[in-house]
């Protein structure tokens, strides 16, 4: 028996046929000694299982239509995103907390504003996919900001301390690096917004068209999604930048050398 999920023999055949690409990639990897066959197989099986499980979980949540379940899923998304983001800057203290808080607040603000203006309704069918997109973009922004500030502050420590020595407070001394980090986090989103539809059709729109929606309806939703993601990236980037910059200074406007901890 084939589970309903696959939508019958034809659908299952389509699914399996699409896996041909993975086989081709594995063959090329072996031919070119790229040594990626094992990773490819793991990634393929893992993504298959993950997506099926998510599919069943979403079916369940959609059927229940319980706000607590919806919020619960968003909390799980934010937590995983925050921890993933912080894994890139292990040396930064409280990175995980900064990741979760900035992505969480960024998501609440973005989704909250959309709900407030009645753009979407608080139903799992709207909130979960929208929340997923917001959290995904916010995660990228948080990662870029945390890694950017961490690297820039260390490389530019002399400039920052020279400004402190001239009587600048912590914020004034690190303003250039702070702005640069936010800018670098926002540029990919701004560029994507500029070229949307010209270089590639964005995910939400593609999905809707494939699912049978009219291109115009898909475009309408995509516009909302793009603007929403600009908001998510901005909110999260700003919060992550503020929280990250704060970890580098004490209240006496001294640059904290985190490498000292290694000596203790």
């Amino acid at each position, binding site marked *: 028996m084939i589970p309903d999920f696959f939508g019958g023999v034809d659908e299952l055949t389509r699914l399996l046929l699409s896996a041909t690409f993975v086989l081709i990639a594995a063959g090329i990897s072996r031919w070119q000694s790229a040594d990626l066959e094992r990773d490819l197989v793991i990634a393929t099986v893992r993504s298959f299982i993950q997506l099926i499980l998510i599919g069943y979980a979403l079916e369940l949540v959609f059927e229940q239509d319980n706000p607590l379940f919806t919020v619960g899923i968003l909390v799980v998304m934010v937590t995983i995103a925050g921890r993933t983001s912080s894994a890139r800057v292990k040396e930064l203290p409280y990175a995980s907390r900064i990741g979760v808080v900035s992505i969480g607040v960024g998501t609440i603000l973005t989704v909250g504003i959309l709900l407030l203006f009645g753009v979407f309704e608080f139903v799992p069918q709207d909130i979960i996919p929208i929340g997923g997109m917001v959290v995904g973009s916010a995660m990228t922004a948080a990662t870029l900001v945390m890694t950017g500030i961490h690297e820039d502050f260390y490389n530019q420590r002399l400039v920052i301390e020279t400004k402190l020595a*001239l009587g*600048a407070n912590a914020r004034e001394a690190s303003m250039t690096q702070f702005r640069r980090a936010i800018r670098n986090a926002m540029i990919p989103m701004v560029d994507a917004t500029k070229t949307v539809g010209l270089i590639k059709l964005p995910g939400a729109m593609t999905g809707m068209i494939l699912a049978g929606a009219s291109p115009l309806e898909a475009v309408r939703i995509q516009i909302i999604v793009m603007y929403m993601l600009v908001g998510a990236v901005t909110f999260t980037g700003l919060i992550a930048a503020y929280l990250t910059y704060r970890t580098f200074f004490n209240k006496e406007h001294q640059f904290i050398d985190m490498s000292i901890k290694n000596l203790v």
Partner: protein
Amino acid sequence: MGSKILETQCLSLRRGRQTVLTDISISIKRGEVLVVIGPSGAGKSSLLRCFNRLENMERGRILFNESDITTLPILDLRRQIGMVFQKSAVFEGTVADNICFGPRLRDETLTHERILELMAQAALEPDLIDRDAHELSGGQEQRLAIARALANQPSVLLLDEPTSALDPIATHKVEDILLHLRDTSGLTLVWVSHSVEQARRVADRVLLLEDGRVSRFGTVDALLDHERGDAHTLAFARGVDDNDAVGVSP
């Protein structure tokens, strides 16, 4: 030269498990040039960082004009005790933007004439005023750092090997500027140097730090005079000179 402007009492500093400074008790007179010498890692730069409060000492006190520096507003203190680093950091913008950095933090605007005056004090040519600061040579950058620190009108200037990256001509120029400032405006200079010859040229008094402790502290004559100087300091000086000579002897 007169009253004490800076004084340390049993100052100690640790970083993690590492002891950087131990029991430093010295006083610095208003308008004097104190040169701090010692081997690498002796704690010379760390002492300056404590004066400017870029770092907090672990124990002891530092008095500035007889007030404990921890009781003074830290940003004001840093303006009054200026610091020039070994490697100068140039900020974005022009030479004028760099010089105005400190005053601008307090919403003060420097007039064109005042900027030129500060540039002249640091022997920077007036036509550099609108030049992008990143285009300056090493010597010009260091003189810009001095002008930028002077714009805050400090009463003490901490100098962390300000000439170590400069050629002999630029070194002498910077030395002349700083001594001239001391003579004309009574600026007190605490000058970290790796060159004993430089200490002989510019110092009123010399502090020899070794292993984070005061090894010798006194006048140049008492410590570095070839005939009458302190045996230990002269032995140290000879060691430094010998090491220096290795690189330049044919």
